């Protein structure tokens, strides 16, 4: 938080007063709005003032607690944990063993007893270290959920109630899934959920607001900021207000995008509080190694050998073809088994992918020798393994696989990730399964069928590198897959069929998803709807102009328009104008016929005309958006202001505006409407009214000047010049200023 220190101090005291009051006489402040307190003598008031639960004051604490929870929740906060694979049957049993001799392999153990750490008061955090893909997340999830963990921890907390909170960070995910803010917010959520009484003490301001205004206060709440979350957590640390012990599990410290030193500091701060203990997991990076050197710890890859054997055995034995082979040559079968585990060198993910490949081979009728040969060829390194799995995809699926990866890549690399707080599935990491399905040419709209078929397609065409989560998102199997995809993308891109345009596919997918969605139920909120529309425009603007693309693109955008039509009334140019703002060139060209039907839409209407849209770019009515939708509007606005969105197709917008103005001027000689429009635009652009916070100053466009030479001009100046050329009236003062500046030059 960037407040001057004085203010921070000021705020701290205000907060302190509020807190003191809450601590001493909770009723006085909390019951402040209860009518019976205000008029203790007027008993009838109590009756008559009984408020229906849906409006105004909630006098019960549960209602307030629920509101706080609703306020703390963010959509992606359970996504990650759902996506982490469950531990295979009987694996990770060793985590609850108390003595190294019980662990089977005793060579070079780096291991401290977990149950002992759980049971006792311990000065240090517990550190689970492990290579990428060694199964840290799966193990953490297993540990957090196992009843034995609870019973161990209960010994530690003895008479005090025990709370457990866990956070699984996800680097390939969206903002809150990998930020300290997200961590704190999620922890607070879990704490309040388990110990509702503490809510007023941790979040006194929000609590007071809820007490006074009821749920209506939710809409007035400011966004969560680091300082408030941090203060709340700090308060939690002070023992006087807390009657419970808290165990925190944080998975994947290396997945956070924040400064590692700060993050480690935060973890230590948690752990230092009496009655709080923290268990973390991460890759064995130097920062963590240095920080946690003296902590009780374990190394995953040194301990999971038995688990891997169990896993491979379990998977293979369940396969009929393997059992047949095993019956004929048992030694080879065992050999195959051990080779997998040996070669994995502690990387569980490798084992699971290779086992999948072997099962696929078995289905195709490979012999044990074939499988052994394949196994020997597969690289031991994870990223190389992805490459080799990719090249091993059957030729008939290769194109399909490349298309799926291209759709995924195109969608997830858009600036969408900046819309972190949009309350919908578009903000979650990965791509919504339905959008991928439609983008990939799927026709069925039955959710169960989509999930089933898509799962199969992903297995055969991407070898499981992409997978579909229970919440209906398609995402990378593992962070390392994401990294791999990024590093080999330029090569992969070449395998995409030439006639395939991923931007077109995504635009079609989004528009179809929206179209299908509207039929049975139109439940989307407006910002959500608009987010989808903006994304669709974003991709549609990037479609390459070719004869075979044009038809489907126009169809997709028209479909988008149709699905919006009953929720949004367009004036004048309306939809075409919005498409023009975002530079959806193919569509706008198709719909504005320059020769004959040059309608009023080009210039009429105060704001809704194509020419203003072209010149001003995305969301020309920014303020209106913000006013209408508050925080959500802000979010969409941010998206539209993104350089990537704003700058894109700007030269094209400029060109078309130029041509269009020329055409209108020719058709309607000396039209006052046109002159007024141009003058107004000129005035606005010159005073930077329109571009106030979009700052296109760094944007330059190339203007073909007379003759063969062309010049590079800042966008704003180019627009001004063009407007003047077409007869915008320029005020005398502006003209003088221009002459002076030229003269100075």
């Amino acid at each position, binding site marked *: 938080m960037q407040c001057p220190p004085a203010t921070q101090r000021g705020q701290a005291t205000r907060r302190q*007063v509020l807190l003191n*009051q809450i601590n001493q006489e909770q009723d006085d402040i909390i019951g402040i*709005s209860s009518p019976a307190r205000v008029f203790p003598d007027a008993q009838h008031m109590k009756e*008559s003032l009984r408020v229906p639960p849906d409006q*105004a004051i909630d006098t019960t604490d549960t209602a307030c607690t629920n509101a706080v929870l609703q306020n703390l929740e963010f959509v992606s906060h359970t996504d990650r944990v759902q996506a982490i694979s469950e531990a295979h049957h009987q694996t990770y049993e060793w985590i609850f063993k108390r003595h190294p001799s019980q662990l089977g392999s005793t060579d070079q153990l780096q291991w401290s007893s977990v149950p002992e750490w759980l049971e006792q008061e311990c000065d240090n955090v517990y550190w689970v270290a492990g290579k990428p893909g060694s199964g840290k997340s799966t193990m953490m999830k297993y540990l957090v959920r196992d009843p034995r963990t609870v019973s161990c921890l209960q010994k530690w907390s003895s008479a005090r109630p025990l709370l457990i909170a866990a956070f699984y960070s996800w680097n390939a995910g969206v903002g809150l899934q990998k930020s300290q803010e997200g961590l704190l917010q999620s922890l607070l959520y879990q704490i309040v959920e388990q110990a509702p009484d503490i809510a007023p003490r941790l979040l006194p301001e929000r609590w007071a607001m809820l007490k006074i205004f009821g749920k*209506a206060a939710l809409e007035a709440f400011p966004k969560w900021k680091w300082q408030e979350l941090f203060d709340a957590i700090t308060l939690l640390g002070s023992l006087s207000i807390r009657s419970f012990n808290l165990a925190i599990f944080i998975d994947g410290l290396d997945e956070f995008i924040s400064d590692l030193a700060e993050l480690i500091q935060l973890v230590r701060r948690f752990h230092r509080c009496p009655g709080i203990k923290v268990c973390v997991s991460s890759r064995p990076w130097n920062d963590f190694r240095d920080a946690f050197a003296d902590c009780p710890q374990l190394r995953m890859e040194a301990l999971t050998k038995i688990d891997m054997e169990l896993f491979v055995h379990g998977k293979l034995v369940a396969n009929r073809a393997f059992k047949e082979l095993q019956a004929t040559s048992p030694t080879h079968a065992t050999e195959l088994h051990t080779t997998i585990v040996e070669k994995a060198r502690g990387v569980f993910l490798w084992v699971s992918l290779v086992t999948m490949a072997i099962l696929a081979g078995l289905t195709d009728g490979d012999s044990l020798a074939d499988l052994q040969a394949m196994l020997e060829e597969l690289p031991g390194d994870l990223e190389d393994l992805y490459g080799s799995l990719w090249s091993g995809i059957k030729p008939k699926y290769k194109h399909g696989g490349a298309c799926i990866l291209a759709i995924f890549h195109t969608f997830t690399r858009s600036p969408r990730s900046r819309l972190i707080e949009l309350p919908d599935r578009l903000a979650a990491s990965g791509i919504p399964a339905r959008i991928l399905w439609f983008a990939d040419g799927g026709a069925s709209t039955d959710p169960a069928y989509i999930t089933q078929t898509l799962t199969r397609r992903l297995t055969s065409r991407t070898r499981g590198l992409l997978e579909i989560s229970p919440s209906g998102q398609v995402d990378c199997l593992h962070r390392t897959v994401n990294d791999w995809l990024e590093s080999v993308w330029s090569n992969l891109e070449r395998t995409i069929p030439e006639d395939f345009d991923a931007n077109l596919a995504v635009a079609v997918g989004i528009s179809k998803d929206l179209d299908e969605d509207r039929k049975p139920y139109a439940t989307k909120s407006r910002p959500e709807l608009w987010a989808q529309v903006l994304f669709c425009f974003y991709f549609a603007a990037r479609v390459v102009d070719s004869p075979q693309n044009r038809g489907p693109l126009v169809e997709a955008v028209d479909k988008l328009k149709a699905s919006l039509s009953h929720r949004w009334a367009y004036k004048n140019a309306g939809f075409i104008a919005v498409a023009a703002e975002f530079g959806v060139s193919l569509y706008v060209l198709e719909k504005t016929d320059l020769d004959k039907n040059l309608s009023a839409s080009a210039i009429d209407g105060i704001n809704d005309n194509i020419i203003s849209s072209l010149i001003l770019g995305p969301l020309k009515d920014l303020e209106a958006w913000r006013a209408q939708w508050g925080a959500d509007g802000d979010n969409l606005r941010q998206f539209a202001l993104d350089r990537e969105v704003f700058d894109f197709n700007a030269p094209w917008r400029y060109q078309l505006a130029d041509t269009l103005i020329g055409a209108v001027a020719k058709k309607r000689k000396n039209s006052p409407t046109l002159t007024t429009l141009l003058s107004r635009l000129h005035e606005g652009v010159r005073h930077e009214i329109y571009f106030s916070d979009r700052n296109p100053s760094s944007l330059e466009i190339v203007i073909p000047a007379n003759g063969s030479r062309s010049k590079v001009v800042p966008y704003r100046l180019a627009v001004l010049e063009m407007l003047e050329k077409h007869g915008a009236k320029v005020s005398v003062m502006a003209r003088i200023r221009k002459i002076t500046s030229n003269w100075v030059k």
Partner: protein
Amino acid sequence: MDPLSIISVTAAAAQFVDFGVRLITKTADTYHNAAGASSKVAALEAISHDLAALARQVHEKVTLLESGGHVPTASERALLEQCRRCEEVNNEVLDAISSMRLRFTNDPAEQIQAGSEKKTEPRQKEPPPQIWSFMKALRVFWNDARIHDMELRLKNIRSSLMAALVADLWYARHFLLLSLSGPQVHHC
């Protein structure tokens, strides 16, 4: 000003607003369960008593705050402004109530049982023959537009109160920040 006084004045005003909104939007009223004009009069009496009490509550808190001799901040000024608006509403509604009372007491058709009847009878035993509500009665004196306007005014006061309290509790003393980035308030 300390946050507690701020909160208590906001709470008082919010209570007034909630009461007012319910009074003019609810078609069935708990104030009036028994039949007869006298109880309508009694109901009006009770309503005006409660409303006045709530308004007095606001007024007292404001006086207390203003007596401190401290220069109010922007958010505090915004809060006090809303309290003043509450007072205006109070006066208008009380005016309407006194005209209604006059009408009820003078109209012989409305007068079945004279005298002040306290609400001591058990309520459930006698279901009302027809549902009376303050809002319906008010319609005789105020047209729909005025009632609607009053509702909007009250809701507007509520959102302004929220905005001012947020400003005070979160961004206290950031005058500039306040006026620029006050939270967006949605009207229901």
